């Protein structure tokens, strides 16, 4: 606020940085050709590729179709992982017996990278959507379980004692004490899960798919079409970004008490 200057908003700063990157990109490719067009496309080429995929389509579909299909698969796998993983993790956090029972399986499965499941998923379910949802589910499941478990364990013991002294039991204890108490770490888990979902989806689509952003990347690679590769990458970035933002909104909305 000094000298009458207003503090520039985060949006303005972010926008300027982005604009600067585009200008540098233009300078490095089109203007000076420090980066030869064979390795990295010019902004004009990317715009051209963007127009091509949205109007005529590319790799068996238009950009909207690829984009929505990928989002849909991630959402399905993510929802299934969260729906199963959060309750299971919370159960393990609450009950030592459940933990003793389930944890050994987890110790065995945890070190296997989700991508290593892709071949098996293809053998079981083929190249269609089911195989991808399965792999995405698996990628998201582990962080969802582990963080929900840690979330319940992170609740101060005196809070649980206070609840029991107030006569709070059963469903009320789970819904109004354990769940909100674990929620900050559950959301940490969901953010990790969502990232893992996108990584896995793109990898799975690269190996084999009919539509999807990963399929666009694969096809563009085969066609030696750098501009289209960049369009696919931007698509993945935007889709992932949108979902992360939505999750952040949900987090802020569901925990009005939570101080940052």
């Amino acid at each position: 606020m000094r000298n009458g200057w207003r503090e520039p908003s985060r949006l303005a700063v972010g926008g300027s940085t982005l604009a600067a990157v585009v200008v540098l990109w233009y300078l490095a490719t089109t203007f000076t050709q420090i980066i030869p067009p064979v390795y990295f496309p010019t902004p004009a080429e990317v715009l051209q590729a963007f127009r091509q995929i949205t109007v005529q389509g590319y790799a068996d579909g238009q950009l909207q179709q690829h984009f929505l299909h990928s989002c849909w698969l991630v959402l399905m796998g993510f929802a299934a992982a969260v729906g199963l993983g959060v309750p299971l993790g919370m159960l393990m956090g609450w009950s030592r017996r459940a933990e003793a029972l389930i944890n050994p399986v987890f110790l065995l499965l945890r070190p296997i990278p989700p991508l290593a499941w892709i071949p098996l998923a293809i053998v079981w379910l083929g190249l269609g959507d089911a195989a991808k949802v399965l792999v995405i589910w698996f990628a998201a499941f582990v962080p969802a379980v582990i963080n929900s478990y840690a979330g319940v364990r992170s609740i101060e013991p005196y809070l649980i004692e206070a609840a029991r002294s107030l006569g709070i039991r059963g469903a009320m204890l789970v819904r109004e004490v354990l769940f909100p108490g674990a929620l900050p770490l559950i959301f940490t888990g969901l953010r990790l899960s969502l990232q893992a979902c996108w990584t896995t989806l793109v990898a799975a689509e690269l190996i084999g798919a009919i539509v999807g952003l990963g399929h666009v990347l694969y096809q563009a690679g085969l066609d030696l079409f750098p501009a289209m590769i960049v369009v696919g990458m931007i698509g993945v970035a935007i889709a992932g970004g949108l979902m992360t933002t939505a999750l952040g909104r949900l987090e802020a909305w569901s925990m009005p008490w939570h101080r940052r």
Partner: protein
Amino acid sequence: MSNIIFDRVARHFRRNGVDLAAVDGVSFEVRKSEFVAIVGPSGCGKTTCLRMAAGLDFPTAGSVTVGGKPVTGPGPDRSVVFQQFALFPWKTVVENIDFGLRAARLPLTERRERVGRYVDLMGLKGHESAFPHQLSGGMQQRVAIARSYVLDPDVLLMDEPFGSLDAQTRVVMQEELIKLARVSPRTVLFITHAVEEAVYLADRVVVMTRRPGRIGEIIDVAKVRMDEHWDRHERVEDVMDEASFVHLRTHIWRLLREQQSRNEQ
């Protein structure tokens, strides 16, 4: 209302394969609607005693009974006020106070009436929909005390409830608690390491010794309070200025100091 009886209670812990006695051979009674404070150095097992009355811990030998029944677990008939307040951060002031009433499935009209009464009594008006982190420590502890009182419990168990408050707030809360105890008398077991606080609040003060926790002496404060008319004073500092108060306080201090030097030898 109920009484609390500790009958030859012992509580041992095993730590690194060594058997440690936290409490040993403790017997005393908190009579119906009596306010008993336990004082003692940290690690004397006073909190363990309270936890056993709450049903959050259990004796290795002897028994703890509340209202003639052995304690088998925690419950709303024995309300606990914790040093860390233990408010639910995701619930507002009113939701925190109402929580136990909802668990007891009381009708809405009665819940409203009761919560409203304690919001008034504890000076929480205007903060009904605040979250705990928006309140000062003193206000948070008011909510915790209201949450306990509102359940109309047989006994109240307070574990150093003012231990984490600053000196001024602490004094105000002590006065509030005395007022509250006059409006609705309760059987109270109160844990503290502050001697003045114990003498000011309690009818009787139980002095515990350090490890293993045993009872050193039980001091009848109520008799002195009556005889010397402490109740004519509104303020803590005026009571604490009374010669009879100073005398009791010094007596308890000496007891605690003696133990300390015994331990150091």
